[in-house]
Each structure stands twice: as C-alpha cells, then as structure tokens.
C-alpha cells in the first residue's frame, strides 16, 4: 500500500502496483454497497463493471491535484455514465478531494452527493452528468478548449454501452474525428447489458470497433477487468496532439465481483439489506474470482 506516502497535490502518473489497484477496486465495490444502503437503492452492477477502469485512471493515470481541483492543466474525466458516480465519490474522497465522512450522508436531503454527479457541489467532478449521450460532446468541448489554450492534457470519457444508442454520441464521435482531437480518449464500459436486456437484443451496438473505425477513430479492445491490460493500454496512448481520437472498448461483466449480480438484469438498481448485505461484503472482501458469465457480442 503506497497510498499514505502519495504526495496528494503532486501530478499523478504514479507507479502503483496492480495489487494496490485491485485493493482499491475492492474498496470501490464495498463503498458502493455501503452507500447504496444509505440511499436505499443503488446502481451496483453498472459501477462494479467499471471499478477497475475507474481505479486505473484515478490512482495510476490521470494528471490531477486533489488539493487543487481546478488546476487548468489537469487531465479531465467525464463520467458520461453518470449513474456510476457512487463508485467515483469514494475514490475522490480517498484521494483527498473532500473528507470521506461527507459520504456518510450520501443522497440525504441537502447532500452534495446524488445518484448522478454535480460539478458545482463535488470537488473533482469535471462535469455534471446523468442524461446519457451527452458526455462525449462535453469531451469534445474540453478538447477544443485545451487546443485554444495550448494545453496538452488529455480528456477521458467513460461511456456506457447502452448509452451508445443515443444519437448525440455519434454526432460527437464524428466531430471529434473531424476536429482531430487526439487528446480525447473514450472508454466504453462494454458490460453487455442495458436495463431491458442484452444490448444486442434491445438495440445492438456491435460491431463496435468497426463502427468507431468508420468514424475514423483509433480503437483498442481489452478486458476491462484486467488491470495490467488497462494500464498497458493507457500507457500506450498516442500523444494528445492533432490526430484521431482513441476509443478503448473495455469488455466487462455487469455486476462483476458479486456472483448473483454478474450478468443479472435485476441488479441494475437494487438494495442490499440485512444478511444479504453482510454476505455480499464478505464475498467482496475475498476478492475477485473468475466469472462464469460472458456476454454475447
């Protein structure tokens, strides 16, 4: 554990071990379960699928300064799938953006923390989200501003896969390539499920690589729960100058980490209480086991 020795106001880009990141992903999942109980409901499974992506970005890759949240040269992160905010808040608290005990009143009347993140209320949130389909356009605006200001930070945007049915995503994809926004990196949390079922049954999004390639994007496809792969892919990004934007399609498992939630439709929103709560916490404590569920592509 190197957390205690991290200079919290230094630019990130830290050398952290995969073991450390795996521990932080466990922390994200457990906090999601804890906070959901306070709210009485939570987006468990959409957050679990993104846990490794979030920790790899925040603990290893993003150039950020928790004590200077508005640092103009910081990397930007847009949580376009805003319903995974419950997994991001604990990371921001852990890194020192705000006091962790503030989360104890998660979603209570007057809390800065809602199911979807509010940039005006929560330090470290680069843009408010919740309405799916908007985030990539925000990223386009961030990238154009960076270019006008001659800054070389990157803009990361985490998209849900069901969200890709929104037309505005493809307006943004077209414009990002047109404006040659090489600083823009989209990551698709390809967990396979939207609320009504498998994306390929509800509104098919595949073939994703070909679709983004058709929009003149660089594409990568990885295992979104393999921290080594995530880090290697983030480390190998092309330089953030004038050039094609990059999309990382991260194949994930919705609900990853809790067997009864993996690939299950009925855990998009849920509430764990009583014995179920304790059982799930124990299961998470034990760490990730191989998943038995695989979504069709």
């Amino acid at each position, binding site marked *: 554990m190197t957390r205690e020795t991290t200079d919290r106001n230094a630019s990130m880009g830290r050398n952290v071990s995969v073991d450390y990141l795996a521990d932080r992903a466990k922390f994200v999942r457990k906090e999601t379960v804890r906070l959901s109980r306070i709210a009485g409901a939570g987006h468990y499974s959409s957050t679990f699928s993104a846990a490794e992506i979030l920790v790899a970005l925040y603990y290893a890759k993003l150039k950020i300064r928790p004590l200077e949240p508005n640092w103009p040269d910081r990397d930007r992160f847009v949580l376009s799938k805003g319903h995974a905010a419950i997994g991001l808040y604990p990371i921001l608290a852990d890194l020192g953006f705000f006091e962790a005990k503030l989360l104890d009143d998660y979603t209570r009347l007057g809390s800065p923390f809602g199911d979807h993140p509010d940039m005006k209320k929560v330090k470290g949130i680069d*843009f408010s989200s919740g*309405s799916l389909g908007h985030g990539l*356009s925000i990223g386009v605006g*961030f990238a154009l501003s960076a270019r006008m200001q001659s800054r070389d930070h990157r803009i990361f945007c985490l998209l849900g896969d069901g969200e890709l049915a929104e037309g505005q995503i493809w307006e943004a994809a077209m*414009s990002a390539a047109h404006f040659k926004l090489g600083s823009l990196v989209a990551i698709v949390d390809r967990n396979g499920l939207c609320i009504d079922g498998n994306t390929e049954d509800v509104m098919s999004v595949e073939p994703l690589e070909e679709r983004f390639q058709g929009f003149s994007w660089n594409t990568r496809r990885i295992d979104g729960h393999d921290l080594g792969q995530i880090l290697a892919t983030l480390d190998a990004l092309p330089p953030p100058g004038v050039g094609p934007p990059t999309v990382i399609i991260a194949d994930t498992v919705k609900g990853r980490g809790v067997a009864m939630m993996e690939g299950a439709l009925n855990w998009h929103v849920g509430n764990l209480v009583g014995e179920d709560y304790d059982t799930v916490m124990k299961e998470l404590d034990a760490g990730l086991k191989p998943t038995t569920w695989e979504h069709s592509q």
Partner: protein
Amino acid sequence: MTGPVEDNASQDQADFFTGDGGNALIASEKGTPAKRMPAFVLGEELADIAETDPRIAVMTADLASANRTIEFQERYPDRFFDFGIAEKNMVTAAAGMAASGHIPYAATFASFLGLLCAEQIRTDCAYPKLPVRLVAHHSGISMGFYGTSHHALEDLAMMRSIAGLTVVCATDAALLRSILRTSVDHPGPMYIRLGRGRDPDVYDAPPIDFRLGKSVRLREGSDLTLIATGAQVHPSLNAAEQLAANGIEARVIDMHTISPLDAEQIRAAAAETNAILTVEEHNITGGLGSAVAEVLIDCDRLPFARHGIPDEFAPVGPPAALYAHYRLDSQGIAARALELLQ
C-alpha cells in the same frame, strides 16, 4: 385567426419580411430613405469583442453564412467551430468549453436551438450555471413559408422555465450589439432570441444605459401600454402612431428581457395606464404575455390581453403575409389595441 391566408395583398408589400412595408421606420445611418436590409451584425460584433477577449469562441451548425458568424470565422479561424448539422453536440460541446474558461456563443435557428436542444440547454448549460450564450435567430414565424419545422413559437415558454437561464430578445441590430457586449461578463447562461437578425431599426445606436432585465420605455402614453419584445417592438411603435391618429396615446415598452422579467415596469404600466396589451411573435401560451400576466395577477384588475400567435401551428406563407394574418403588423396591433379598449 385560423385557416388559410385569404388576403395575399400583404405579400406584395415593400418589406417582404417585416410585414410593415412602407410604414417601417427603418432608420438609416445617413438619413436616406431606408429600403436597404439592416445588417446582420452578429459575427462582426462578436469579432470586435474577441479582439480584446481571448475567452470568446463562436460556433454554428452549418449556418455560418446565414447568421454571418462567417465574419468571426474570417477574423478568428482558430476560435470558430462549425459543427455541421449537429446542434445538440454543438450545445453540449459549448458547455464543455464554458467549463474550461471560454465564453462560447452557439448560433443557429431558434427552432433547432431552443426546441431541439432544450434538454442540452437545461442540463448542460443551465444546471451547471455555465456562461454559454445561445444565439437563436430566425425565431417566431420569420422563416415564413419554410413552415412549422422552421418556426419557433414555443421557445420562450420553454426557455423561461429553466432556472437561472437569462432569456433576452434582440429588438434590432443596435440592441443586439448591446446584448452581446453585456453578455461577456454576465454570469450564467443566456438564450438570446433574434428575429431574422435583420430586423428594422428601433434604436439609432446601442443604448449606453442598456441593462439586462431593465426594460425600455420607448413612448409615453396613458390610454394603454403596449408591451412588446423582439421584432414586435418596431410594429408596436408604428401601431402607437396609428392609435395616436385616433386620439389614443399608447405607452410602448421594449421588454427585451423575458427572464428575469422587469416586474416594476409592468406594475407601473398597470397603475398608470388604462390597459395592457402584450405583443409577441410566439404562442400566447407561455411567452411574454403569460410572463406579464403572472405579474398582473397581483395587481389591481385592468383590461389586459395577450397578442401573439394563438395556440396553433402557423400556416405556410411569406413572412409579411403571416404577420398580417396574425395581425402582428402595425395595423393589426393597433386594431387589437382598439378592441381591448372598447
């Protein structure tokens, strides 16, 4: 008034677009009879502002020539972005720019900005209180025979119900310049509604005492008050002259800012004049008339009417014919005022 346009006489009027023909008090810089089209000053004014302010950026959706933002593009190509026909992406990207320290002006037809992008305006611009300037031109029925897809008769109702969004209508080119100059350091987002962007002049020059939310009393009178906004201010002034010929003196107010509304001016009109008629190029549901009525509900009872587009979609027609059809030209406004007073 519903049904097809029966009287096409107004289609032959001198000013095809305003419907006010030869009666238009189009001011001319050099005092020559004004028949020329007023300039669309948007791009030029923004470029002038950008000269000393690096935060200004301009974007449009495949209408750079139509709205003259091309003049900005020519002077500041690095701060101009044509998003093509993708308005929602443009508005949300503008919000991203505003969150990065820029002051973006996003311009396109009102129908595709206030209506198509209503949710992006609410969620991405207003909710985070970002200084995005949404320039909605060709509002109302000014697109005439392009039809309902290109009309915007609902945008004021939608925009003024969004918390923290300043909604302002440009009376003419001079007032547009005032609005744009004031907009630079105005906190929060703005919806700036234009007519065709080439509307007849009401002001000789940008008023130096212009303030958002502070309406302008353009004409004095105590028999009634005409409260107009945007491109309807000019024909309302002409209507007041026609009423004066009938011995009726009308106060005329340019209510350029719809939100926040100048309630003080409305209460004064209620106290000091005998009737109030609102005049707007908008559905009478939810627009200026409704906003004024919300203030008047707390005032003593007085004759009040909303003049605008009834709750219907406008027929196709040249703009001038449509203005006549809806009695939104000066003769129509004067006639409606007389009805109110009887």
